[in-house]
């Protein structure tokens, strides 16, 4: 194996686990390029779908964003798959065509958006894939699984940031057919595999009442290849822990009881989810990626003070049922109290930061 040259701009020795002592932090640049998910002082759950077109020079420039954590996040994925086989990656048998669709989408996007790191060379169905960040140079036959060391979806997503859930269209709904989910926010892939759209959204409070689910499903079913859409979502996570699945809840839930108004700045992390959905051309499946960004409240204050103020206001006015669903009921007040020291109440711009008039990170 050739030695992997150390890429510049990437932090290689980060960890997302207690065993690794949560060795993780964001540079100032990494914070200020985040897809910050709070356009208003008051947060309201919504589908907020918009066309996934390049916007700004941050996380929304590429179809599938990578950042300084790419290498360490891929290493974390490999570790999670090794530690708990059959839990984080699953695919129903008939999903193979969608798997190849997804491999193509990810590799073509990386090749186009980050040519300095990735090269995809096609000669008919004979493909060569070079990933210079991970030291990979493989040739395989597109459509022939025997030419890859593992499932096409597993192969591609082991080299991608974020998690990926593939939904197949069946009987006018979308059914979970496959997933690479080493960064799950409190759900189980084993449990949810095979569920349809309304079934896997069952636990989300208020959604049905608001008619959001039906409208979202109708919208998604009209999606066409080449016209992706995106939304952002968020939660809070204690410590920079990516893997917060239902299965390992006994390992991470106790951390929620350790947060105080004094340590919330270091312990509480905003968990931003960028979700760029694509219709896949051959299988007609839809891929639902969840690109997760972790940033501590203290990092926000230091590098993006206006965003910290916005988070303070959104959390302070948050509906209790939503806080409960998102799992931070116990330390909600502590996080708000810590943030309140860093909010002078000055008016803030509205709109997402990737729009010209939207809220920018601010200057400290």
């Amino acid at each position, binding site marked *: 194996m050739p030695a992997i040259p150390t890429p510049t701009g990437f932090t290689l020795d980060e960890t997302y686990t207690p065993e690794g002592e949560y060795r993780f932090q964001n540079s100032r640049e990494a914070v200020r390029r985040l897809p910050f998910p709070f356009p208003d002082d008051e947060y309201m759950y919504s589908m907020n779908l918009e066309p996934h077109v390049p916007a700004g020079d941050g996380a929304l420039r590429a179809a599938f964003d990578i950042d300084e954590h790419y290498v360490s996040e891929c290493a974390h994925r490999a570790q999670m798959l090794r530690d708990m086989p059959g839990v984080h990656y699953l695919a129903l048998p008939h999903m193979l065509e969608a798997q190849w669709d997804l491999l193509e989408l990810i590799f073509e996007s990386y090749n186009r958006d980050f040519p300095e790191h990735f090269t995809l060379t096609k000669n008919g169905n004979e493909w060569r894939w070079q990933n210079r960040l991970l030291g990979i140079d493989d040739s395989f036959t597109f459509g022939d699984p025997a030419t890859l060391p593992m499932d096409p979806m597993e192969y591609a997503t082991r080299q991608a940031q974020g998690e990926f859930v593939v939904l197949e269209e069946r009987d006018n709904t979308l059914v979970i057919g496959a997933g690479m989910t080493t960064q799950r926010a409190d759900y189980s892939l084993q449990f949810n595999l095979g569920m349809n759209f309304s079934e896997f959204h069952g636990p989300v409070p208020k959604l049905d009442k608001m008619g959001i689910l039906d409208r979202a499903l109708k919208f998604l079913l009209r999606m066409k290849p080449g016209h992706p859409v995106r939304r952002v979502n968020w939660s809070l996570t204690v410590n920079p822990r990516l893997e917060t699945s239902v299965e390992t*809840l006994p390992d991470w839930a106790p951390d929620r009881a350790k947060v105080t108004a004094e340590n919330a700045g270091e312990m509480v992390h905003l968990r931003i989810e960028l979700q760029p959905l694509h219709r896949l051309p051959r299988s007609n499946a839809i891929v639902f990626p969840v690109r997760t960004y972790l940033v501590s409240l203290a990092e926000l204050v230091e590098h993006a003070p206006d965003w910290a103020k916005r988070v303070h206001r959104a959390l302070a006015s948050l509906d209790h*049922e939503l806080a*409960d669903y998102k799992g931070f009921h116990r330390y909600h007040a502590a996080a708000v109290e810590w943030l309140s020291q860093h909010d002078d109440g000055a008016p803030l711009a509205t709109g997402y930061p990737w729009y010209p008039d939207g809220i920018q990170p601010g200057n400290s």
Partner: protein
Amino acid sequence: MLITGIKSRPVYDELTPMASGLRHVAAAQGSGGEPLLRLLGEMDPAQLAATTVLYSIESFTGRNHLADLKKHQVRDLFVFPTNAEAVRGLDTVLATAQMGTRLYLSGSEGFIGTSMQVATSYGMNRDEVLREHAGSFVRRVWCAHCGHYSENVTRRVFQCPGCERNLVVRDHYSGRLAAFQGVKADGEVPGELPEDEELDT
């Protein structure tokens, strides 16, 4: 608190003869004998002659409809002492089933769910299967931490026989696992349990 605001549950049908069926397979358990009897009563003689009945006398509520089932002139009637054996029997019957077979399931959620797993493994579509719930709403629960399946769970909080953790039963059901989800009840603070309650009463 881990469970407030979570609302989901399988939606059941009412058993009624499917006219499109060439062969009929009806599997029931305990109280599920009642909808099964109603179904057989609605069938014409030709449909009855093309119907295989599987019945498990295992019952959480103690209801047994076997004597009444025997009064119907069906093609076959197979009786099983336990639900697990009835589900295995269903597997054997479906293994040789032909196109045009229609399936009817009635009984507890656990029985219907595990029978559906078998039906799905033979590629049966939802429009070829009718399911009617009967009897108590005891639950089959999957432990998210050790993978153990507990049958006949009646309380919101119970101890997992597999890993001995206290589990809280979430109102979230997986057709693939044929079970509700059980997660550690005192995950955040040991000993701090959510309020216990009887399920679905």
